[in-house]
Each structure stands twice: as C-alpha cells, then as structure tokens.
C-alpha cells in the first residue's frame, strides 16, 4: 500500500508549552484513521501542522512521499491535502451554493481570472450542484450559511473540502456541536466518502471511532501514546488507564 501522508518527528511549541512532540504518523491511501486524545492533547495543532496552517519547529510532512514541509497551505491543497475545521470556517453571509462555488472555482484555477463572470463557469456550477446533492444540501443551496442549522453548516464545511477533490482529508471533529439526533447524517456522509481518499478523523465519540476507523492513534500531551487497530487500542492498558478509564466517551 502506498503512503498518502506521513509525518516524521514533528514537533511544535507555543512558547514554553510543547504541544506536539516527535509525532510519527502515517496514512495509507484509502485509510480510515482516527486520532483521539483528551482535550488539549494537541490534535488540532497536529492537523494545522499537516495542512500547513502552522509551521513545525521540528520534523517533516510528506505527501505521497514528497516533502511538503515548506509549502504553503494553498500549495498543499493543490496537491490533494485538504482539511475541515473544528470550528466552522465558512462565509456566513453568502449562500451555501456560493460557498461551494468559491471553493470549486479555486480548484478549477479560475480564481485568478478577473475578466470572466464567475456565473459563466458552467462546469463549476454543475459540480457544485452535484456536491450539494451528495451531501443532501440541495434544498438549502440558496440559503445563507448563517441561517442554516448548525448540523447543516458542518456539512457545508465538508462540502468545501470535498470540492477540492482531495486525496487526503483531515476532518477535525466533523460532528462537534451537532445534536446527536443529526450527527448520523454527517457520519453517513463520511462513511460514504470514496475509497481512494485517505481520511484522518479527530473524534471524541468512541462509538463512532470504533465503528469508522481501521487504525487509531492516541495522542496525549502532544505525543503518541499508542497506535494500532481498534482491537489493539481497546485492549491497551496504558490507553485504558489514561484515556478510556472513565467509560469511553471523553
């Protein structure tokens, strides 16, 4: 199996606070990998380092074997590495449709063209309609993102990333803040992601993690505590001691 994304000895500190410590993590193509750990463990920071939102102090990030450590976030996205945000990062005052269109125009390379009307790009509109349908958002296409229920907004968050046609997706707590009655919609979407995409998902709900993941990495205080199949992790005494001890849902 080819390695889609790999980090080598990644380290990051904020002042005196060491948030990422010597993290080696690798995602194979088509992987379903869960990253778990208590609040403040440094999971989001790790995603920021991988996606290029933050520069690491030590170590490298490799995408399909190529060193991308010094590339900008935009370059990484162009090479197939896309992420969602734990807290919605959307254009709240624009329609759902246009959120997706902006993302798609960017991927289609239209973002540099100041002369062509954005609405004249039928390929982009076409694809936007497809993506919205795929996420069951077609009836909300014309609503402002701000007016959408939170659960739907989380779907838009995923749509923005899907529009980039990534080979690796980093999902930072995609169902965070969504009432449990609605979270299954999001999980169904994630479960239905194409097989060739490697997915790293950060999630606190252990039921979801164990249902979804083929590999689990446990991050505690910035360092990897354990890594392995769900069965390995469930039986790992260290993990149980520091993490799963109190009943599963952290």
């Amino acid at each position: 199996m080819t390695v889609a994304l790999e980090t080598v000895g990644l380290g990051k500190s904020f002042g005196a606070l060491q948030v990422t410590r010597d993290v080696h993590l690798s995602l194979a193509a088509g992987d379903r990998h869960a990253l778990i750990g208590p609040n403040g463990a440094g999971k989001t920071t790790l995603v920021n380092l991988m996606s290029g939102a933050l520069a690491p102090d030590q170590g490298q990030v490799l995408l399909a074997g190529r060193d991308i450590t010094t590339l900008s976030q935009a370059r990484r996205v162009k090479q197939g590495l896309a992420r969602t945000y734990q807290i919605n990062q959307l254009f709240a005052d624009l329609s759902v449709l246009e959120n997706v269109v902006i993302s798609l125009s960017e991927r289609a390379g239209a973002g540099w063209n100041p002369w062509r009307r954005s609405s004249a790009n039928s390929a982009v509109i076409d694809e936007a309609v497809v993506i919205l349908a795929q996420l069951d958002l077609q009836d909300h296409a014309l609503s402002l993102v701000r007016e959408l229920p939170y659960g739907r907004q989380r779907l838009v968050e995923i749509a923005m990333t899907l529009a980039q046609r990534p080979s690796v997706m980093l999902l930072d707590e995609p169902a965070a803040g969504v009432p449990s009655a609605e979270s299954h919609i999001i999980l169904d979407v994630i479960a239905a992601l194409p097989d060739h995409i490697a997915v790293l998902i950060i999630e606190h709900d252990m039921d979801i993690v164990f249902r979804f993941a083929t590999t689990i990495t446990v991050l505690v205080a910035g360092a990897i505590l354990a890594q392995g199949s769900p069965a390995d992790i469930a039986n790992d005494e260290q993990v149980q001691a520091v993490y799963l001890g109190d009943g599963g849902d952290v």
Partner: protein
Amino acid sequence: MTEHYQTARHFLRERERWRWPEALPWLAIVAAFFIVPDYLALGTQIVIAIIFALSLDLILGYAGIITLGHAAYFGAGAYATGMLSAHLGWGEPISAMLFGGIIGGLAGFISGWVLLRYHGLTLLMLTLTTAILMQETANAAEEWTGGFDGLVGISIWPLLGTFDYDLWGKTYYCFAVVVLLVCFLVARTIVHSAFGRSLVGIKGNVERMHGVGTPVHGRLVTIYTISAAMAGVAGGLFAESNAYVTLDVLSFSRSGVVLIMLVLGGTGRLYGAFVGTAVYMTLEDELAKLSPEFWEFGIGLLLVVVVLFFRRGLLGALEDLRVRRS
C-alpha cells in the same frame, strides 16, 4: 438535477444582472452637463473623486483591506502625470493620464507586496506612514516636484488633438466621465469574476480561503495594484485638470476624505463611491462657503451617525428602507 442546475445558475446570475436604478447616476452625470454647465469644473473634480473612491472600494469594500494611506497612489499618479509634462514636455492627455496610472500601479505593487503581509493596526500604521513618507519624499525632492510650492509648468495638449481646454471645463468633464465609465466597467467586471468573489471570500474568512488553496497574498497584491493604478489614473486626471500639483495630493487628509466619502455612500457596492462622493463634495461646496466650522462639524457628526446607525452607508440605508416597506 438539471432543474437544480438551472436554479443555481439563475441565482448566481441574479447578482450581476444590470438593474434599472444603475442608470440613475449616469443619467445624473449626463444631465449635469446640460443643467448646470456653470458647475462643470466642480463636476470634473467630483468625477475624479468618484474614480478615486471607486478604487478604494475595490480593496476596502471587496477585499477588506483597511488603509489610511490610499492617497499615496493618487499622489503618485498626479506627480507622474504632472512631471511628465513639466519636465519632459509631454502633454498628450490620455497617455499622460495612463502614465499616472502605471506609476500609481507600480507604487501599489511594490508597497502592497511588502505591506499586505501585515494585519490590523500594524497594516493601518504601515499604510498611513507609507503615504506620509511619500509626501515627505516629494517635499524633499524639490527639484523634481516643486516641493512645498507645488509643481508648476504643467501644460496639457488638446484632447485627441482637437478639443482644447475651455473656460467652462466641458472638455475635462467629458473626458473624466469617459474615464470613469471605463474604470467602472473594469471594476464591475472584476467584482463579479471568480477573482472578485475570491476577494470577498478573503474578506469574509481568510482562514477558509487558505483552506481551499487560495494564494491569499498574491490575490491581495493583485487587487491592490489594480486599485492603485485606478487611483493613479484619478491622480493623473487631477493633475491635468488643475495643471498644478501640490503636496496635498499625498496628504493624510486626502486619504481620510476618500475613506469618508466611500463609507458615506456605502462600501462594497461600487455605486457607494458615486453617491458618497457626490453628496460630500456638493455639501462641502455649499456649506464650506457659509461656514467652514459648521461644515467640518457637520461632516464629523454625520460620520459618527453613519458609523453608529447606518454602517452600510446611504445606499445601504435606502436598501433597508425599501426592504422594510415591502
């Protein structure tokens, strides 16, 4: 599926459709030519200020770049055009104005490349001090710019070799209006393009734009350069129509006034530049004659009221009124 496609397409087109109220400012501009021919000199200055405010709207209203130094590019254009004539003897109005635009754009590109990596107060201070630095430079380079006394000796040839400068300023009014029309069409095209929408995205949420692979700095520098070039064109026109350039073209107060005019009309809607500028300059012309203090106090008060209660400017307030009615 096709039905959804049609709806989506229609929805996106709706925003950029020409609407009949858009004809109003242009009708007013044409009507002014016939109705108040005595005021065409003022009219020309208003049209030039509209071009300048429009250029600011591109970066402030669309890309969300807050600047206190936009006069830097207006002034660069004015001096470029003026010096071309005063020192090199070239007075062909169209090319001289375009030269002002090029120099303004160049200044915008260089300063934008450096400054647009910064944000918030730092960016505010950097734009402010850059413009003042340019003003001080112009002041010190007396041999070239005339320093404090201003640049004299600008002589502009007849437009298209035929229409000479007339006492009533008809020629320059028409010239300025045509330039405004071109600038407006350029601006309107830009803001409705994918490029323009990416600027709106940057203004709305930079984080997300990085996340969808937008080279944010490059986009900002590009629109900044376009805007600076447009400001430079306005400056060039200004130099030609007055045949005189002083340090005032680079001043903080010019940067401030253009900001006030734009905000008064409403940012991020192109026509805000028209309305705000026309209202500001007409009022100024009338009131400042009566009592400068009264005018200054009034504009200050208006600004405070607009910021607190009508943040979307006069056009925004009109829009709200219409929405509430229906």
